[in-house]
């Protein structure tokens, strides 16, 4: 059973989303997603300053057998990326909630309203 912390929001595409101060939003992938991917070997992060739309693919997490696009949950500007993942992508397997991918400055926080809460995501990820 994978971990789904209650204090986060989730996208159907398996990103976790954490609203922070000043309209910033931190994004990573769920424990369920990292389990499905297996050993992560490479992470491709967006450029800082890039404009993204909600639902736009802006990062890639690769395992030996798969490459998974990561979608921005909100429209806005990339303000920070987790550089440490380029040397240690395995951090995502160790704790995918600590190993965040990027932060977006959201244009409109109401876009977050359509995300799932923890219990809804649990049902989505593990219907059994």
């Amino acid at each position, binding site marked *: 059973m994978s971990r789904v912390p209650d204090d986060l929001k989730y996208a159907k595409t398996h990103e976790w989303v954490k609203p922070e101060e000043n309209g910033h939003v931190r994004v990573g992938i769920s424990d369920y997603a990292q389990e499905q991917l297996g050993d992560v*070997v490479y992470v*491709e992060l967006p450029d800082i300053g890039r404009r993204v739309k909600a639902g736009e693919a802006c990062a890639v997490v*690769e395992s030996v057998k*798969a490459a998974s696009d990561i979608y921005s949950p909100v429209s806005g500007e990339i303000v920070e990326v987790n550089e440490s993942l380029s040397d240690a992508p395995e951090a995502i397997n160790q704790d995918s909630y600590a190993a965040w991918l990027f932060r977006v400055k959201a244009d409109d926080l109401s876009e977050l309203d359509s995300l799932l809460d923890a219990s809804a995501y649990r049902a989505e990820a593990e219907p059994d």
Partner: protein
Amino acid sequence: MPFIPHTEDDVREMLATLGVPSIEALFGEIPAELYCGELELPPALKEMEIARLMRARAQQNRPLLCFAGAGAYEHYIPAAVWAVTGRGEFYSAYTPYQAEASQGTLQVLYEYQSMMAGLTAMDVSNASLYDGATSLAEAVLMAVRTNRKSHSRRILMPKTVHPFYRRVVETIVSSQALELIELPYDIETGCIDPASLETHSDTDVAALVIPQINFFGLLEAVDELTEWAAANGAIAIALVNPMALALLKPPGEWGKTGANIACGEGQPLGIPLSGGGPYFGFMCCRKAHLHQLPGRLVGRTVDAEGKRGFTLTLQAREQHIRRGRATSNICTNQGLMVTAATIYMALLGPEGLRRVALQCHRNTLSLMNGLAAVDGVERVFSGPFFHEAVYRTRKPAREIMDGLAEQGILAGYELARDYPELGEAILVCATETRTEEEIELYVRRVASLLEL
């Protein structure tokens, strides 16, 4: 049934096991109206008959004494190269997807990647592409992907790049909304004038292609060109002849920073002319661009007991995993050709390869010196060349080509179609396989044609 081992008993037993009356019954799901009936193909030949036929066909070829290069070069290939490459264990294996059962192919590819990285002085090499032209097309696409600073998708493509390569690049990138900007050459030197790049200095350029040697056999100002690319945020793509790199400064050492990508045709490294293929393309790059490199890669790793072994790696870049978003659609590459090239490079070693390169260079020098003394012949460009050069005659180039062919000589490659501005010009090449006598013969034949 030349290669089907089944006996009548086998077939009977197999059908009985399946519980069907005939092999035909196994095709029962195919709609009857789709069957094509008897095809109009020639009847089957036994091995002796096809051997006779092919020998006759081979006789219809009339190999000429080769003074042509233009992208394919006659080099001597040591006997050991194909004696080993042709072993069934290399020849009849598939792509090494089951690494543990493919360590032979995988280690060869790793050694190949190491040798190519060494020869080009770049960090990494892929395991091959189809040929020189497709390697340049892939390099251009890779440059656009990897250059995040540029948003223009504009590529500076010098006219001194092989015209066949340019047309392939055009075909392959045609649907990718790239802009190929032709970069002219200096009509006196036959090279890109670095000063001519100034008109592009204030514009957004994704990549600059730098051929060394260029199509005319001439040496480009690679340091200045590479530095211009670096200063203007463009990816420097080196298009190089691997044989020349035994003698010439490798792309990794061009300018202050080196080129970003090096690509080219691998045929000179132990691959026969074969009417145009199979050859292989190579591509090397800086570590920073690794994840945008197309094609297969072999990495060194360890097995469950800590022993060294090799495996395909970083496959998530490739089509079988990333499908529509892969770095390229390439799947099958030119593995066997690369095996031959690896053995060729290992046999020649750094010194052997340098000597071959130098002998090609000297032979072409000697040919051009001979030609320059002939009345009615002139060298078209004055700068230094490697093992190809351009001369012009007062008679139509076609007459020289035809006249020499009648005497069993392939005179070179006519430039009029692609470079009409050069007049009656022929691109000629004398590799290490040409003897002094053959070179003298060539000069004499040209001289006598001009006297007529």
